């Protein structure tokens, strides 16, 4: 079995093993998560070392209708696979003390398997299968282990994103059929389909792909599933959802939509950039009005992904590299924030800004990590968030529409306006009547360890982003206009 296959099969085996191992599922899950992380590190190492040379294709002969088992990995794919494996391990560690059944652990392994599959697949049929497969474990994670309103949120999440994917599937089928008509050959292979003349259907195909990926990102106005899903999901579920699943959308645009319909993308650039800039500013504005800590972080994700899309649509080397790096950064930073909100919720079963107060004294470690992650999130230079945002904005500034960079910078400014008052309300303000701060004990050694890992990564990427940029850049070279 090649390394690439192992990257998604190991979590799959982990899911089965977890489901079978009953009470010991958390240990099984830990073992498989560690193994998956080791594998992805092994795959990532040569790529980081030799500045982004791709990994060999694990292929197979095309079967019926040209469907083949084609996997490949370059800097972009492997970084995201690494992020998946890393965050999965973080999730396992963060959920360690939860009283949950074996299914919980199995779902996370299955989710990691599907996510790795999405990032590795180079056959669009395979891609689509993995893409939809991510929904199933996440549906259960939200619907079974979420908070009070979980069923409704799970249903909304499923229907919303599934409806989006239908458009994507239609577009993919259209591309394959058009390719078959032109060449007489059935194939779903991404490389072979690149450059297919889509004719007059091109805008429709691009629109279909955009809807499918845009829902996942989520791009305003397709975003309303996200606050509900994030708010109701368990902490680790939110981490995976925000940390990796949202990146599927951006990844899809980078890997599928832009290469398949480059001319449409170029022609629609002003509209797309406008939507991205609106996402960045609108997400920040909405976050300002939130009174629920988790919803606030959810809306901040919309804003950050808006920056990401700004970079993607700019079509410049800086913007694309920034978008790719921002995906990783956002996974780490927002992951940390969701974990911290989750720890708060675990202790007090409340998430409202006005439910707390005075936590800086009661839980100084929690306050420190929260403050650190917030600073990374609002783009304090020296931490990871800044690098990606800065490169994205720089990319859009060099494109043909620099005015949107101004909107983006307004979004950066607004980030402090929503994040800091929330921080002050929870950690600095005195406890009000009905405050549940008394229930919040400080982080234990396990929880602190998780957050030290995340914060160290934030600082590392912030101070020395160059190795990451060098690994990501070659994957994106073909997309620079």
């Amino acid at each position, binding site marked *: 079995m090649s390394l690439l296959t192992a990257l998604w099969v190991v979590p799959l085996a982990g899911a089965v093993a977890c489901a079978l191992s009953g009470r010991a599922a958390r240990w099984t899950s830990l073992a498989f998560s560690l193994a998956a992380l080791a594998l992805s590190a092994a795959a990532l190492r040569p790529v980081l070392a030799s500045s982004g040379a791709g990994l060999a294709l694990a292929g197979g002969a095309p079967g019926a209708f040209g469907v083949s088992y084609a996997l490949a990995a370059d800097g972009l794919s492997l970084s995201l696979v690494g992020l998946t494996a890393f965050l999965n391990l973080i999730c396992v560690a963060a959920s360690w003390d939860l009283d949950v059944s074996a299914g919980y652990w199995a779902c996370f392994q299955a989710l990691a398997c599907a996510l790795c599959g999405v990032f590795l697949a180079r056959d669009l049929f395979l891609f689509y299968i993995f893409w939809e497969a991510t929904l199933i474990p996440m549906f259960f994670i939200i619907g079974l282990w979420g908070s009070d309103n979980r069923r409704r949120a799970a249903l909304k999440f499923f229907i919303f994103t599934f409806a989006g994917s239908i458009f994507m599937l239609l577009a993919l089928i259209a591309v394959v059929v058009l390719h078959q008509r032109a060449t007489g050959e059935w194939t779903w292979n991404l490389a072979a389909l690149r450059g297919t003349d889509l004719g007059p259907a091109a805008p429709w195909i691009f629109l279909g792909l955009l809807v499918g990926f845009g829902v996942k990102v989520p791009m305003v106005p397709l975003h309303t599933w996200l606050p509900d899903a994030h708010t109701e999901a368990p902490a680790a579920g939110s981490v995976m959802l925000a940390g990796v699943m949202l990146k599927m959308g951006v990844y899809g645009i980078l890997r599928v939509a832009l290469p398949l319909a480059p001319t449409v993308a170029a022609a629609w650039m002003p509209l797309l950039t406008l939507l991205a800039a609106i996402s960045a500013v609108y997400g920040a504005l909405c976050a*300002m009005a939130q009174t629920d800590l988790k919803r606030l972080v959810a809306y901040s994700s919309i804003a950050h992904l808006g920056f990401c899309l700004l970079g993607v649509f700019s079509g410049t080397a800086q913007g694309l590299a920034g978008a790719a790096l921002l995906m990783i950064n956002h996974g780490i930073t927002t992951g940390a924030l969701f974990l911290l909100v989750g720890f708060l919720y675990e202790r007090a079963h409340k998430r409202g800004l006005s439910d707390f107060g005075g936590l800086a004294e009661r839980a100084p470690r929690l306050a420190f990590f929260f403050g650190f992650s917030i600073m990374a999130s609002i783009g304090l230079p020296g931490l990871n968030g800044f690098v990606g945002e*800065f490169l994205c904005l720089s990319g859009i*500034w060099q494109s043909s529409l620099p005015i949107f*960079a101004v909107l983006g910078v307004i979004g950066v400014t607004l980030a402090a306006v929503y994040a800091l008052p929330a921080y002050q309300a929870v950690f600095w303000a005195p406890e009000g009547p009905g405050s549940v701060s008394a229930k919040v004990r400080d982080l234990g050694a396990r929880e602190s360890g998780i957050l030290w890992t995340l914060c160290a990564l934030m600082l590392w990427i912030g101070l020395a*982003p160059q190795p990451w940029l060098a690994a990501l850049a070659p994957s994106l070279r073909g997309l620079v206009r």
Partner: protein
Amino acid sequence: MTPAQVPIVAWLLFLAPISAILFGFFILRPLKPEWTHWPILLSCAVVAVASVALAARVYADGSFDLNFYRWAAVGDWGVDFGLRIDGPCVAVLTMVALVGSLIHVYAASYMKGDPGFSRFFLVFHLFFLAMIGLLTANNYVQMYLFWELVGLASYLLIGFWYQKESARKAALKAFLTNRVGDFGFLLALLLILTTFRVAQFHIIYLKVLVLASGGHTPEFLPLIGGLLIWAACAKSAQFPLYFWLPDAMEGPTPTSALMHAATMVTAGVFLLIRSWPLIAAVPGLPTAVAAIGAFTALASAVIAGTRKDLKRILAYSTVSHLGLMMLALGLGQIGVAVFHLIVHGFFKAALFLCAGNVGHAIHQPTANVDEVGGWRKALPWTYACFLLAALSLAGVFPFGGFFSKDAIVDAALSRGGLFAAAGLLVSIGSAFYIFRMLFLTFHGSRPEQKGLSAHPHEAGFGFVAPIVLLAVGSAFAGLLRPLIERLVDGGLHGLPVSVGGVALQMNLPGSAMIPGFEWRALLIGTAMAAIGAGAAYALTMIDAGWDWRWRVSSPRLVRVFDTDFGWKTLIGWIADGVTGLGNFAGRVLDKKWWDGAIESTGSAALGAGGLLSDASRGRLNEALWWMAAGAALLLAAGGLR
């Protein structure tokens, strides 16, 4: 020059604070939090010695500008991190290190017993470190990094006593206002990278000078300059973004001293010094800087004369003196600006710490002129130091401020017109507000006579010794004139840097010349100071009731001064507008309208389903009937075809 040849003292500037902070955070804070200040004070000593040694080295023509490692490079541009040790850098750095260290010593006594003692010292030292980093940065990205770190540290310190709502609000106001300024810095940064493809100061100077000698300026240069000025206005508390600074006194007094004297507000001026070749290349921009400075200096000097809180008077005084520095810069007098920045650091630190002693005497973080009075006997050391620093601030010969401030007034007089008038008026205003404060605090009637009880006494040695040193420093700072002149001149003309192995020498715009002793300046400066001080004496000592009488008789006027001529009200409206916009977007537009619309499609589908479900009763057999009937229908249809 290679990194290996960088003098060890330059490394110590970073190594000492970083290791002190890490040691304090990881080891002392959990084990012995009340010892946190020891490694930090040690680091201060190391930094002070290192910066003096570095200044001596640069004075002997040892400037350097060196890249260490590649931070990020994408496409056709790259940003390297490195060090730029040149004249303006070491001149300001030495002041920051000396003044900052003395404030650290003071803080060790002042903060003793506070429950947040170790947190205070760690953040305080981070503030110090951030300023060192800002001064030694050799490119805009690195400078932005430390610029923001300065902002973060100031946020944490202003909000140090976060239990108080006023402290939380002030901290937020400071950070958000600076963030609005950073909006300009970030955009300028993007423009700089797009235009010049590098962020390193030296290369940018080179490109600007080469282009200017060819007779044209890059397209975006005016915009870059304007945005950088905007950023500097936020950090250095200039109109229109000055309003956060007077509220920033909510932090502990050493914070205010450090922020006003050394670490925070000077950052904006320093940014403009670093960007001067860019700004000077655009006609009109220097005048704009001068105009902003003159206006701010004058308006805030007037407001300072009407405030009652000691620290607030000093805060407006800082705004006013930063305005003077901006005025000097705008007139191209870089040497004078740096000189005043340094002298101001000494006397303003001394004044703030004196105010801290006065507050400490009545067990409050700050004091109001109504609560104090006649304390020159009770606090003799504090009084003497305050007097020295006040004389320096008012620009009385031969104290430090005379040389630096009157050099600015002199430059304004040479320029003539409104600048000259502003310079003279600010001189009068400075003398007025500082002597008003002096008379009200240390002379006049005692608080008992005002119906308040207080038995002030001088605090311990740790409260007095740093102030004495600072006050003496401010008195003799005038002697630094030739040193600073030479250092700045070296920075403007002498820094040889090899670009691609070729040594390049260039002459940057601006003048390092600082006028020395002149009769004209002596006469005019002394006259202005005398007018201001005389007015203060007349209105506080001769007519002792005036200072509160006008407040009662004309509440309108009080309102005008309290709102800073209405500007604060306007800012309040803008802030409310942004909050309202956020609330509309989040609560109404997104939640009610858009998500509501989307959910209603779901509800519609459910409603339709409900109708159908009423038709079926969930009986298995019935369902199978329908299935069979459907299959039959399909078969029939197939058959017909």
